[in-house]
């Protein structure tokens, strides 16, 4: 058995996991943690989080065969190797849910639809374009403006009667859209739902463009926003996409999990190469 760590540095939070697996197969999940960055240095957060996890398992750094980073973790000093987000989310998603055709990774500033095969290989992908009012960041800004706590968004959004979509492509102009809605007396619920629907609209468009044909698993920071999940389901119907959008309580860890598993896989492969080298 090999112990590997996966560290996923995102825009909003650092996710870290510890796994015990053989070459990435039948992995056993030892530890997990997620630290919101809140203007702190992600590098340090990652390091302290990592060490805390080890001590929780009474392990030392030497016990870890491979420390794999993903997300914005390319320059984490103590990493063994780095895998790119879509590679890791795909692998993590398969670990979490098995039979899926695609991953929809929704972060604070990006949305990515990734089509994968049953082993988690990335077949194709599509990202939201740079200037997008559909970003999670935008949703948070608006929520604060409306006096809504992040954990309320989903519930409120579900209560919407007649949601109105935000038209603007530029988030700043979209913000003004929202202010205008408030001034026209549109309810908070309808506004939030409207934003969820606009986001979902874009995301479903992504899902369609990669021609996903099987269950889609939502991962990333916003995967657990019930309001968005609900909106996604509606938009799938609206845009006539007949596949299930699933989500998983641990889906925010998908990137970190994938990194840990790939780390293990890589570790064994390299070990094998070494033996070859020594043999010859």
């Amino acid at each position: 058995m090999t112990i590997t760590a996966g560290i996923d540095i995102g825009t909003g939070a650092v996710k870290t996991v510890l796994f015990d697996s053989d070459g990435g197969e039948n992995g056993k999940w030892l530890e997990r943690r997620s630290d919101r960055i809140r203007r702190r240095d992600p590098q340090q957060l990652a390091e302290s989080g990592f060490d805390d996890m080890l001590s929780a398992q009474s392990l030392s750094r030497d016990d870890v065969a491979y420390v794999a980073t993903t997300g914005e973790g390319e320059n984490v000093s103590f990493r063994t190797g780095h895998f790119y987000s879509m590679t890791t989310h795909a692998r993590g998603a398969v670990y979490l849910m098995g039979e899926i055709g695609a991953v929809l990774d929704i972060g604070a500033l990006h949305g990515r639809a990734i089509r994968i095969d049953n082993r988690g290989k990335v077949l194709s992908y599509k990202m939201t374009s740079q200037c997008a009012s559909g970003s999670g960041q935008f949703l948070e800004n608006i929520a604060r403006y409306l006096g809504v706590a992040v954990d309320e968004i989903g519930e409120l959004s579900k209560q919407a009667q007649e949601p109105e979509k935000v038209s603007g492509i530029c988030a700043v102009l979209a913000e003004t859209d929202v202010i205008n809605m408030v001034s026209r007396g549109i309810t908070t619920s309808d506004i939030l739902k409207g934003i969820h629907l606009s986001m979902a609209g874009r995301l479903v468009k992504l899902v369609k463009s990669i021609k996903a044909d099987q269950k889609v698993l939502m991962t990333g920071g916003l995967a657990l926003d019930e309001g968005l999940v609900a909106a996604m389901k509606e938009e799938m119907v609206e845009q006539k996409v007949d596949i299930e959008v699933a989500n998983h309580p641990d889906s925010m860890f998908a990137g970190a999990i994938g990194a840990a598993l790939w780390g293990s896989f890589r570790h064994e492969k390299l070990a094998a190469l070494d033996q070859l080298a020594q043999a010859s």
Partner: protein
Amino acid sequence: MSIDKQKEQGVQKEDSMWRQKEMINANYASLASAHENGRKIAATFVPGNLNELLMCFDLDRSLPETNALQNGMRKKSGRMIMDAERAGHSEDVCTYVKADLGMMQKGVGPTGDPLPKPDVLLLSYTGCFTFMKWFELVRDEYDCETTMLHVPYQADGKITKSMRDYVVKQLKEDVIPTLERVSGVKFDIDRLRGYLKESAKAEDDLVWVLQSAKNKPSPIDAYFGGVYYIGPIFTAFRGTPEATAYYNVLRQEIEQRIAQGQGPVTPEGDMGAERYRLITEGPPNWTSFRDFWKMFYDEGAVVVASTYTKVGGVYDLGFRHNSDEPLETLADYCLGCYTNLSLPKRVDMLVDYANEYEADGLLINSIKSCNSFSAGQLLMMREFEARTGKPAAFIETDLVDPRYFSAANVKNRIESYFQMVEQRRTQAA
């Protein structure tokens, strides 16, 4: 809704309008049944549209830009564009192309009649790079026989012998043989001559109509109204007696309006007092065509000359199809289309229009899709202002992409522009 029904309901339109609507619907109906009736379909573009030549081979004519704009006006284009983008076409490229590909996926035309795939693509590569890739894409998707007619660019503002020879040679050695093979009809140059004679008649009337805007008040809107007037000649009807008849009726209607000192007809009836006379550069937006037009006639603004009504031929500068040299005249026609002119030449046209039509200023509607038009328009605007001393306004919209028409922005610009013109006038007085 059927035309008769609309007529019963007293929808505001002149006779010429009804005629044109009937011609267009008839053409779509004919395209729908072409294959059952053993007719072949040719697709070709508006600039460099060789309608007379295609008729010589009994081919039905389908014009992709027209299909796209018809879909735009019927608010169908948005979805088609998204379908095309989902199929992998970039959000950055021309929305005519995407609307067309989106439509072909469904195989249904703007009127709801089926639109069969064309049997031959006449790629007259005239004044627009995108045309070339557009038909490569259609060919790639639908395996249509394709014949390329490369029309050189008038970079120095003149048509040279070498250019003309090149185009004529392509017609003789490539285009005509291909059309003969596809249609099974032998080429008959006298038949071509006949159609060309017919074209010239209609062209005379069209020019008269467009120039009637020199009257005050102008009896026509040469942009929002103009796009209807150019319909038949720029599309599948040039060279047909129907087209000639249409322009005849149109001319009479306008002679009448002039006699009665009337302004243009708008979708809401006669326009009020003429307050601003404008020149426009660039195509209109189709998805919000009515709202866009309303922003003008509500303010008493009438367009007296536009470059867009010259994309299918700059007839008012003297060109006529000439049956004495049939192939050469087709070459000159292609080489002379507005978007094939050099930028300096385009500026000259705008300046001349401003003077001849006594316009208050220039409005440039810059189209995201159309770099052939749009690239350089901001310089054209400067040159225009410098040479005429008249103010210009600049707005950005798109042809058939509803996502790219921001009514609030456009209105704000146009409002400010009119208020500016007004202010300068009172100042001058």
